[in-house]
C-alpha cells in the first residue's frame, strides 16, 4: 500500500500527512466522519479494524489518535489524528457506528479528557463515578482531594445517559435512559464470584432470558496512565505486571520493546530467547487458569484443581528465575533483569514432558463431558464480522476463525524464526474459544521445545543510558498477550518521563461484546460467555 497517500488525498483532500513509525493523517474534525466512512468502506483502503483510540491533551488543544489496521492489506497500520482547538467544549464525531469497538473507547476518552462525541448513543463516563469532578488525564486537571473525596454514598441516577446530536448546526444534548421502565434489572457484580473480579453487569432479564447487559466498569480503575506521566521510564514498567497479571511478561515485553524501539536499542539474542520463553510460559499459565475458571464457573470444581496443579509448575519456574510467583518484574529496558536459574532448562523440559498427558486428562474430565459441551457449544455466538468490528483479538477472536495472531501479523522479537501454528476454529461459540486456548497450550509447548535446547550464551541485557530520555515523537507497539493484542502507545516530548502513555488492553474490547453475545441467552450463559471470553478486570480498568 505504498500509494496510500494518493488514495487518501483522493477521498479526503483536506488531509495532511506526517511521516513517522507509520503514516499519520491529520484530518480536520468536520471531515472526520466522512473520511472514516470511506476508510472503512472503500475496498481499496479497507481499514476494517480500529486497533486503538488514544485520547490526547497537547496543552493547547485536545484530540484523538485513531490507530487503524487493514486486515486485507497485509495488516498495514495508519494513524489518524483529529484535533479540537476548543479545549473546554471539545466535540468530535463518533465513529461507534462504523467500528463498534469505538463505543467503549470513546466513552473512555470522554471520561479522561472530556471530549464529547457527537451521535454516540451512550455518552456516560466509563471508569469514574458519574459525580466525578473534572477529567483526570487533562493536563490542567485539578487533583485536589477536596474536589473528589472518597465518597461512601451510592451513585445516583445510574440509569441516566445522554446523546449529543447536531440539529440545525448546533450541538444539542439529549437525555436518555439505559433501561426501559419495565425492565427487570438484576445487578451482577461488582462482588460476584463469576465476574472474575470487580466487574458489574446490570442485566435486564425476562424470566431466565437476558435482554440487555449494561457493562459498568471502573471498580478497579487505578489511573495507571496518569501515574505513568509523573514517573521515569524504568519506573513505569512495573505497572504492566499489574494490569493483566496473567500476561505480565507479555505486557512488560511490549512496553520494553516500545521504549527500545524509540531508543534504537538492540536487545541481545539471549535476552530475546528468554523473553519469548517467558512469554510462552506465561501464556500456558494463563490458559491453565482460564481452563480452571471456566470449569469452576460451570460448576465442575475438580477440573479447576487439575488446572491449578500444573499451573504451580509454571509458577515454580518463574519463582526460581524471577524471584516471584506473580508480578515478576522480569523484563527491563534492554533485556531481562536476571539470568536464568540453573534449573530452568530441567524444569521446562519436565513441563514439556508432562503437559500432553495432563491435557488429555483435562479433556477427559471436562472438555469431552456431555454436560460441559451442552453448556458451551453454540452459546455466545460471535460471528467473524463482529469479532473484527469489535476488534476481538486473541483466542476469543481466533475462536471466531479470525486470523489475528500478532505474532504472525506484526512479527516481533524472534517469533518469525519459530515454527508454530495459529490455532483457528470456526465454531464462533464459547466452546471454540475454550478449545483454542487448550490447543494454544500445545503450541506454546512446541515453541518451548524448540527453544529450550537452543538458548544462546551471551549478555542478558544491552547497555542502556543511565537516564533514559526518549526523543520527541510517538510510538505504538503491539504484542500477542494471553488474551489478545496488547498495545502500548508512548508519546514523548524529550523528557525523562513520558508525555502520554496509553495501554490498549485486549480485555477492554472483550467486555464490549458481552451485550451482543449474551442477549437472547440465559442467565447461566452469561457466566459461560464471560468465562470463555476470559477477561481480566484490572486489564480493562487499568
Amino acid at each position, binding site marked *: 500500500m505504498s500509494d496510500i497517500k494518493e488514495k487518501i488525498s483522493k477521498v479526503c483532500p483536506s488531509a495532511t500527512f506526517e511521516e513517522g513509525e507509520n503514516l499519520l493523517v491529520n484530518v480536520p474534525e468536520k471531515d472526520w466522519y466522512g473520511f472514516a466512512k470511506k476508510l472503512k468502506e472503500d475496498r481499496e483502503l479497507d481499514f476494517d479494524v480500529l486497533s486503538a483510540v488514544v485520547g490526547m491533551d497537547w496543552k493547547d488543544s485536545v484530540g484523538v489518535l485513531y490507530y487503524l489496521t487493514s486486515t486485507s492489506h497485509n495488516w498495514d497500520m495508519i494513524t489518524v489524528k483529529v484535533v479540537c482547538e476548543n479545549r473546554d467544549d471539545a466535540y468530535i464525531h463518533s465513529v461507534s457506528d462504523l467500528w463498534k469497538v469505538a463505543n467503549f473507547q470513546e466513552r473512555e476518552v470522554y471520561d479522561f479528557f472530556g471530549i464529547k462525541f457527537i451521535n454516540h448513543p451512550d455518552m456516560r463516563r466509563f471508569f469514574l463515578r458519574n459525580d466525578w469532578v473534572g477529567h483526570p488525564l487533562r493536563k490542567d486537571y485539578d487533583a485536589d482531594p477536596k474536589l473528589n473525596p*472518597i465518597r461512601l454514598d451510592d451513585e445516583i441516577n445510574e440509569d441516566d445517559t445522554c446523546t449529543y446530536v447536531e440539529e440545525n448546526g448546533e450541538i444539542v444534548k439529549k437525555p436518555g435512559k439505559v433501561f426501559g421502565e419495565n425492565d427487570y434489572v438484576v445487578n451482577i457484580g461488582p462482588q460476584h464470584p463469576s465476574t472474575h473480579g470487580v466487574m458489574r453487569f446490570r442485566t435486564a432479564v425476562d424470566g431466565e432470558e437476558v435482554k440487555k447487559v449494561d457493562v459498568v466498569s471502573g471498580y478497579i480503575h487505578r*489511573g*495507571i496512565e496518569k501515574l505513568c506521566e509523573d514517573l521515569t521510564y524504568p519506573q513505569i514498567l512495573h505497572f504492566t505486571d499489574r494490569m493483566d*497479571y496473567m500476561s505480565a511478561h507479555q505486557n512488560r515485553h511490549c512496553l520494553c520493546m516500545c521504549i527500545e524501539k524509540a531508543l534504537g536499542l538492540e536487545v541481545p539474542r539471549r535476552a530475546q530467547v528468554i523473553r519469548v520463553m517467558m512469554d510462552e510460559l506465561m501464556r500456558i499459565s494463563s490458559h491453565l487458569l482460564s481452563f480452571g475458571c471456566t470449569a469452576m464457573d460451570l460448576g465442575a470444581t475438580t477440573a479447576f484443581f487439575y488446572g491449578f496443579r500444573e499451573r504451580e509448575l509454571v509458577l515454580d519456574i518463574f519463582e526460581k528465575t524471577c524471584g516471584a510467583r506473580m508480578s515478576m518484574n522480569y523484563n527491563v529496558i534492554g533485556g531481562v533483569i536476571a539470568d536464568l536459574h540453573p534449573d530452568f532448562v530441567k524444569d521446562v523440559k519436565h513441563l514439556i514432558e508432562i503437559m500432553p498427558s495432563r491435557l488429555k486428562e483435562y479433556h477427559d474430565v471436562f472438555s469431552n463431558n456431555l454436560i460441559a459441551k451442552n453448556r458451551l457449544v453454540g452459546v455466545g455466538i460471535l460471528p467473524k464480522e463482529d469479532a473484527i468490528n469489535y476488534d476481538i483479538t486473541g483466542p476469543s477472536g481466533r475462536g471466531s476463525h479470525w486470523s489475528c495472531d500478532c505474532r504472525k501479523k506484526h512479527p516481533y522479537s524472534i517469533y518469525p524464526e519459530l515454527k508454530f501454528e495459529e490455532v483457528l476454529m470456526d465454531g464462533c461459540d464459547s466452546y471454540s474459544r475454550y478449545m483454542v486456548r487448550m490447543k494454544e497450550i500445545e503450541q506454546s509447548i512446541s515453541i518451548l521445545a524448540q527453544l529450550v535446547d537452543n538458548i544462546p550464551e551471551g549478555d542478558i541485557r544491552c547497555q542502556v543510558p543511565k537516564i533514559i530520555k526518549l526523543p520527541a515523537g510517538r510510538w505504538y507497539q503491539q504484542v500477542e498477550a494471553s488474551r489478545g493484542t496488547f498495545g502500548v502507545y508512548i508519546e514523548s516530548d524529550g523528557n525523562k518521563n513520558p508525555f502520554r502513555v496509553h495501554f490498549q488492553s485486549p480485555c477492554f474490547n472483550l467486555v464490549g461484546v458481552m451485550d451482543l453475545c449474551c442477549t437472547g441467552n440465559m442467565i447461566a450463559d452469561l457466566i459461560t460467555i464471560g468465562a470463555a471470553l476470559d477477561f481480566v478486570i484490572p486489564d480493562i480498568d487499568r
Partner: protein
Amino acid sequence: MTREDFKDNEYIDKLVEELNATGANVMVGKMDDLINWGRANSLWPLCFGTSCCAIEFMSLGAARYDMARFGFEVARNSPRQADYIMVQGTIVHRMAPVMRRLYEQVAEPKYVIACGGCAVSGGPFKKSYCVVNGVDEILPVDVYIPGCPPRPEAMFYGLMQLQRKIKVERFFGGANRKEKIEEFFKEHPEEKGHIG
C-alpha cells in the same frame, strides 16, 4: 519459620495483657474459650478479590497450599454467611461505597484482612487520583498482610494471626472489639463528601 517467630506478635501480647488486667470469672472464661475456639477454627472467607491477590488466594485454595486443611475453604459468595473479608487488591473510589456496604452485610462477628500492598496502603498506586490509600480508611482492619501479591504462605501467616487474635477475644462481658469498631465508624461517618 520457627514457632517462636510465629508467636512473636507484640500487638496480640498487648491485647492479652489488657484483657487479663480486667479479669473474668472461670465459668465465663471457659465458655469464651470454647466459643473462640469455634470461631477461630471456622473462618469462612467471602469471595472477594479485585486483582492479582485474588489469583494467589485461588492458589491458596488449590491443591498445593490447600487452605481446607485449616477449615478456611468454605468460601461463601453471600456476605451474610461469611466470617471475614480478605480485601485482595486495590480499592478505588468507585469501589469504596460497595466495600463499605459489603462489610455491613457480613454478619457479626466479622473480621477484615487487608491483603497485599494496595489494600494495606495503596501500594504502587498510592499517588493515583482515585485510589483509596489503604482499606483502613473505610473499614476497621484486623490483620495486614503485605506483599505484591503476598505469597500463599504469607496469607496463611496472616490468617493464623487472625486466629490468634480471635482466640483472645471476649464474647461475654468487656466486648472490647465491638467498642473499637463503633469508635472507628464514628470517626469515619458515611456522609456525603467525606474525606478519608
